[in-house]
């Protein structure tokens, strides 16, 4: 059973479109991270959100942490082919599980020129 549920699992869009990826859980997290993974490589951290309701922007990417710290979303504006990849959310619970990350299954995004 996944602690974090991501949706959609696959997303195929045209260049210039907007999209949102969701990451949901019934558990509370002390922080939540978003990673992007390309074929043959390890995940690369995009952002960390730690405060409920927090919104962070990274160029065309907007990340939001839910008020209750149970969910998060990633919104991409005007997607480009370079945004293609596997987007993973990962939550940390802290306490006795210090450093441990719980990953979602990921959203495979393909942006066509």
């Amino acid at each position, binding site marked *: 059973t996944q602690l*974090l549920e991501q949706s959609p699992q696959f997303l195929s869009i045209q260049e210039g479109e907007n999209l949102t990826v969701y990451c949901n859980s019934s558990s509370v997290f002390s922080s939540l991270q978003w990673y992007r993974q390309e074929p043959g*490589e*390890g995940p690369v*951290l995009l952002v960390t959100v730690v405060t409920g309701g927090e919104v962070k922007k990274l160029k065309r990417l907007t990340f939001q942490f839910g008020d209750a710290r149970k969910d998060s979303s990633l919104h991409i504006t005007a997607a480009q082919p370079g945004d293609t990849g596997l987007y993973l959310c*990962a939550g940390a619970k802290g306490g006795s599980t210090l450093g441990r990350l719980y*990953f979602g299954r*990921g959203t495979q995004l393909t942006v066509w020129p």
Partner: protein
Amino acid sequence: EAGVAQSPRYKIIEKRQSVAFWCNPISGHATLYWYQQILGQGPKLLIQFQNNGVVDDSQLPKDRFSAERLKGVDSTLKIQPAKLEDSAVYLCASSLAPGLRTDTQYFGPGTRLTVL
């Protein structure tokens, strides 16, 4: 700054054989993680080391998997004997300060294992 190094990048073995993976973390990172990423899923933590001590190995199938981090730097992950369901990418990651909520884990490129 050099990233996390892993070898080999690919390995194909038959079931019941043994295999070992090697990881060299970023210099100065005391915490090292091994993850298993099965196709279509997110990474799952197998074991976490702090220096050369084990912090969390609750998800490690100890009947066949073992890991060590001698001298608190390099680490090896071994599978003996391998099963078909062990086919996956094995990722190594390291971090500086797991006690901070903003701690960053840096991942290596992974080793893709295929068990026939």
